[in-house]
């Protein structure tokens, strides 16, 4: 009889301890149910030879052969190089423009909500529509971009048909699509900065440029890092926009890793090989994510 309250107490304590798990676990269980099998299966596939030809008989184990083949394949190596170039150039430009835009919007502007709403729009647009609209805009003969460049006295450019111009074209479209994301996150960061250091600097006679380089950038360091890494992960896996803009061409000039995997998985049905390439992508993504996790951690602590 005497032990009843203590049992009750224990029960309450137990309930309190598992409460967080009860709230959090359903989401995790659903994600795990969906992802565990595909991830495990493609890991297994990456060590086997799975092609349409051999698909009825058996799926031979080939060890690391798929991985070795990949790094010997000049197309794959070139797709890695193209993706890296694309990520660095696109994210770099987006950062510079986004920072500029954020600084502009940080002023006390009239119609601020309207401006912010308009700038938000490109990042919400359907990628397929973006890719196709820009394909029309960048058309060599009748595209608006070349027409208005002509008005300004610039010779028409072969945006999508010349290998050397295609990657810049894809970068241009990605910059249009996602600079607003960078700008809006940096703006939120700017608005959260304390005002005192800036006032002190002004009193000490620092110029706007000086206070930007010696105060804003260092104070905003963590936000900048998070935004950059976030964008890198997104840019790294880009598919839709490029697929509709250039389909990886001309002459594979814009064939990123995603497009390469697509070609091997769904055009030549070489699934073992495609899975090995996928796992290389996953590893690269995990490395970027690891850095991201550490910087968010520092931001929160």
């Amino acid at each position, binding site marked *: 009889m005497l032990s009843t309250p203590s049992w009750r107490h224990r029960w309450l304590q137990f309930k309190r301890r598992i409460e967080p798990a009860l709230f959090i676990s359903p989401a995790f269980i659903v*994600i795990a149910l969906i992802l565990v*099998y595909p991830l495990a299966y*493609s890991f297994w596939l990456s060590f086997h030879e799975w092609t349409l030809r051999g698909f009825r008989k058996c799926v031979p184990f080939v060890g690391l052969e798929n991985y070795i083949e990949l790094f010997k394949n000049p197309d794959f190596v070139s797709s890695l190089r193209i993706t890296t170039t694309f990520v660095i150039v696109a994210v770099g430009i987006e950062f510079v423009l986004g920072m500029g835009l954020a600084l502009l919007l940080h002023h006390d502007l009239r119609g601020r909500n309207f401006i912010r709403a308009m700038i938000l729009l490109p990042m919400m647009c359907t990628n397929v*529509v973006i890719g196709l609209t820009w394909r029309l805009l960048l058309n060599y003969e009748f595209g608006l971009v070349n027409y208005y460049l002509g008005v300004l006295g610039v010779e028409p450019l072969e945006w999508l048909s010349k290998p050397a111009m295609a990657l810049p074209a894809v970068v241009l479209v990605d910059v249009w699509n996602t600079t607003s994301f960078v700008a809006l996150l940096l703006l939120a960061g700017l608005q959260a900065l304390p005002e005192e250091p800036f006032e002190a600097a002004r009193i000490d006679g620092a110029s706007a440029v000086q206070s930007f380089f010696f105060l804003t950038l260092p104070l905003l360091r963590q936000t900048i890092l998070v935004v950059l890494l976030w964008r890198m992960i997104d840019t790294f896996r880009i598919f839709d926009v490029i697929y509709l803009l250039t389909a990886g061409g001309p002459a594979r000039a814009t064939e990123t890793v995603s497009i390469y995997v697509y070609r091997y998985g769904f055009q030549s049905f070489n699934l073992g090989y*495609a899975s090995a390439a996928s796992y290389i*992508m996953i590893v690269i993504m995990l490395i970027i994510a690891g850095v991201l996790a550490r910087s968010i951690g520092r931001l929160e602590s």
Partner: protein
Amino acid sequence: MSRYRLMRIVKEILIYLAVIIAVILSIAPILYLFITSFKPAELTFSVPPVWNFRPTLQNYYDVFVGGKFTKYFMNSLIVASTTTIIAVVLGSFAGYGFARFPFRGNYALRLGSLLPQMLPPITIIVPLYVLFNSMKLIDTQWALIISYLTFSIPLSIWMATSFFADVPVELEESAMIDGCTRLGAFFRISVPITAPGLAATAILSFIYCWNEFLYAVILTGRDARTLPVTITSFMTNKAILWGRIAASGSLVLLPVLIFALVAQRYLVRGLSRGAVKG
């Protein structure tokens, strides 16, 4: 003094000028698409571009009459809404859990929940295809709903956590002292307070599902096809039907843009919360 004022006015003008240019560059391609969708076919490619023309609904007519656009519109709507409802319910519970209980490993787990969203879709689509094929789910709405949950649940957790973190703990504590259970406090206090934020979460999840292309193009065929795939079907082997692409593209963009404008403030706050301290 007057020189100083002049400088200020010039600076002000330059700032507004730059902002106006940014706004124009942001919306010009979208406006161009809308305008093209009302252009008669013979003017689509005219150089120099013609802006003064009699608008026609021919392109829209072609889109609706030529194929099963209404059916695919419904597919998109059903897939995006179903995914969003499941994701926001699960994401709200998890987000509340993360925001309310500072247990050990909270932070690591929260970041871990983001991983599926970062996963390049191309890397799991091969095994998902094989899996759905053996379950006879290829070309069904369920194949898409299940795939979309992999990014919409993490997204919802991320957004919901930031909104629940803004609800003062004291409000719930006083209700719980008055005999409210934890679940009661969640539904009667936290959810109503964060309702606008959760609505923005739902809108963002809906937009992501509505826009998705890669899963849809691989996992569906004639039956469960969604709108982004339908747009690409106007690129035929013979010709690219730009008029129809512009019209269907406009129809796909319209709900997205309206949603984004309505939820603008909360969308930005929910997204940026994780990247900004405080």
